[in-house]
């Protein structure tokens, strides 16, 4: 039952219109779901700047930003999958298999850098395509399929490297992970560009709209003429390609590829998306939210180091933050 019989007296109309216009411009600040998390991020930055000696210096900021960038790239792919109402547990393993194959191509086979990167992205795309095809053709839940892919891809990486790490990447390649444009590390630029593109795709294109429709109500989307299966295959493929991109940046950053790296990445990525206000049921979430979620996790990790807290505690904090964020969001929704 809604009543909108509120009448505005003529004298106040002008003022109300003006206020309305102002609220229209600024109101989003208060309305958007991301506002709460943005506030937390700002408070945390302020606190860390004041409470620690080194947080605010340029060197540390670059480290934090790069760390956040790596998580963000992965989490953006996860955002697409979660928006669609799915989940992808295999992203950490896809990072590893991609990293190892790029290493093989570039270091062991001495292939050109661009070709090696393309191979890496291709492998990522293939893994995601397989995920998508299995999910749509078998009807087995994404949780199970991608759990299988998680083991499969990591196993393959270990088989290929026989447990050894690959290092000795060429210098120009390492620039991608270690270089700067002015004061800004390249990984941050890569993440920012990807974030912008993903944001535009989600908010301005019919493809992005269809992702929200499928995630919001799969049956209704199907009956509205959305090719749901094709959407799923494309989105899982994209998610894995984000993981492959992360692998490129990460190998260039650490100049090494290992079969046993990348554990727990999927949880960090899911955590960032969830903290960013996305619903695990699909249809709700945004790139901005995810970036804020990744930022929060990155700040907590770095902040704990700066505060001299044992790194073992980091996961305890990250886990608590995830529970707290989702609990607050659930509470906020219920109180509406």
């Amino acid at each position, binding site marked *: 039952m809604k*009543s909108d019989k509120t009448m505005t007296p003529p004298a106040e109309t002008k003022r109300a219109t003006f206020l309305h216009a102002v609220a229209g411009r600024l109101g989003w600040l208060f309305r958007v779901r991301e506002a709460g998390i943005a506030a937390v991020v700002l408070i945390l930055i302020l606190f860390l700047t004041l409470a620690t000696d080194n947080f605010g210096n340029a060197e540390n900021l670059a480290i934090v930003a790069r760390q956040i960038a790596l998580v963000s790239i992965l989490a953006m792919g996860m955002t697409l999958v979660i928006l669609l109402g799915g989940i992808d547990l295999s992203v950490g393993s896809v990072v590893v298999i991609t990293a190892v194959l790029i290493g093989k191509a570039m270091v062991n086979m001495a292939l050109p850098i661009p070709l090696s990167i393309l191979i890496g992205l291709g492998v990522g795309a293939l893994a995601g395509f397989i995920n998508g095809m299995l999910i749509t053709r078998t009807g087995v839940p994404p949780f199970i399929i991608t759990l299988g892919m998680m083991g499969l891809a990591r196993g393959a990486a270990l088989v290929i490297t026989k447990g050894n790490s690959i290092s000795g990447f060429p210098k120009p390649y390492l620039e991608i992970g270690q270089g700067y444009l002015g004061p800004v590390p390249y990984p941050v630029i890569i993440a920012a560009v990807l974030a912008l593109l993903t944001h535009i795709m989600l908010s301005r*294109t019919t493809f992005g709209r269809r992702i929200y*429709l499928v995630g919001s109500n799969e*049956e*209704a989307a199907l009956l509205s003429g*959305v090719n749901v299966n094709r959407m799923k295959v494309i989105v899982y493929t994209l998610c894995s390609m984000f993981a492959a991109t992360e692998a490129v940046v990460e190998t260039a950053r650490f100049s090494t590829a290992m079969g046993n790296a990348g554990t727990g990445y999927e949880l960090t990525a899911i955590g960032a998306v969830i903290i960013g206000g996305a619903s695990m049921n699909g249809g709700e979430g945004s790139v901005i939210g995810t970036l804020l979620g990744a930022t929060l996790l990155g700040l907590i990790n770095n902040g704990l180091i700066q505060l001299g807290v044992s790194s073992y505690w980091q996961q305890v904090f990250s886990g608590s933050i995830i529970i707290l964020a989702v609990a607050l969001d659930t509470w906020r929704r219920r109180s509406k």
Partner: protein
Amino acid sequence: MQETILLMKGIRKAFPGVQALDGVDLEVRPGEVMALVGENGAGKSTLIKILAGTYRLDEGEIYIGGQQVHLRGPKHARDLGVSVIYQELNLAEQISVAENIFAGREFKNKLGLIDYKTLYANAQKWLDTLHITGVNPRDEIRSLSIAKKQMVEIAKAISLDSNIIVMDEPTSSLPTVTTKSTDLNEVQVLLEMVDKLRKRGKAIIYISHRMDEIFRISDRITVMRDGKLIGVKNTGETNPDEIVSMMVGRDLKDMYGRPKAPAIGDVVLEVRNLNQGHRLKDISFNVRAGEVLGIAGLVGAGRSETARAVFGADARDTGQVFMNGKEVHITSPDHAIRAGLGYLPEDRKKAGLFLKMAVKTNVSAANLGAVSNGGWLNNATEERISREYVKSLNIRTPSIDQLSKNLSGGNQQKVVIAKWLTLKPKVLIVDEPTRGIDVGAKIEIYNLIHQMAEQGVAVVMISSELPEILGMSDRIVVLREGRLVGELDRKDATEEKIMMLATGVTSEVLV
């Protein structure tokens, strides 16, 4: 006159921005069925939730058995003998009938474990007391039909020794069947149960939108509108027309408002020999431009299955679909839409709406091509189209940015209709288009269907409400057990004829 068991007096309740109840009285006597009617939003649910202890009242008094009571919560209300059987049923699906009946009051043995033998025996006792057949205390709730689940709720209410039983739209998800052959008919069984409860001296508050049931079962009728009490009538001294006009506040001569002579054109959609497993067998029918074709049948007869198979939502084994005489190969809803079909599904919330999405997003969902350019969304176009339809369909929403879950059922349904109208379909299949929406919105939807037909759309209407099928259709086909068993012209069709075809029962049995 008997004494009053429940008296609610001058009940007022406000929610932010809305006076939901504005001084409502309700009086019920033992051994009486009091029907409570009103459009959606009239305040029936709020009143019931106050009685159930879920909401606190702002003002007013409640007397149960002559004693004034101040309800502290649902448990308090239950202890005072009030049981509410909600539309959506509050049963745990995956545990047994007996455990549901005695939820929270399990029988324990010496070890403190549940004594299943006593539990089942006691549950059976209550089922027997009420002569409920076909329900075993050991059955899992989810294995039962909706009507049987309601029986379990009733058994639970009786076992709690409730004297005031509220039934909130108990038949809204059951088919209306007006035959006299009881074994076919879940509504009939339910109404008989209500009668049994009345004979046991229980006071029953029966909420329903269905006039036929209200007039068959109730002793008195309380009518509400806009949070106010409009009047109380003795059922024997009134008629459905009077009640409906009290509900909507105006006279309703002909709800279906059908234009006299529809201009019916050529065959637009033709379906030939549709087969799907054992669900659909050899179904053939056609529908013409400007025509409303009704599809009648009992639940499970294959009506929605036919629609979904034609629309490409479900696979079919064999069967051809022709549009304007040309065969089209529809294997997905996407194809169907491109061929000029639209399908308004039966379950609005599950399959029709994007509940968490804005009205405008819902309106454009099936026709993103019209609001985009080369894959880029054009917000201005989307908003303009959406405003147009909100206006022309009289969709009551504060804005096109409102989430569709916040709209009333009737307005939600209009949003789904708008979604299809943006496509300007040649054929629109509407499946239970007025289920669970109030009379006023129903009439608006009937008018919309007529308007579409007048503009040359071929409309296929599936409905379980016979008066609706009879009032709206130019022609009616009847399905039974996956077969098309008959076709009736508007002028020959009667409820009896449709039911004979739908049930396969011959006329001698019926009379």
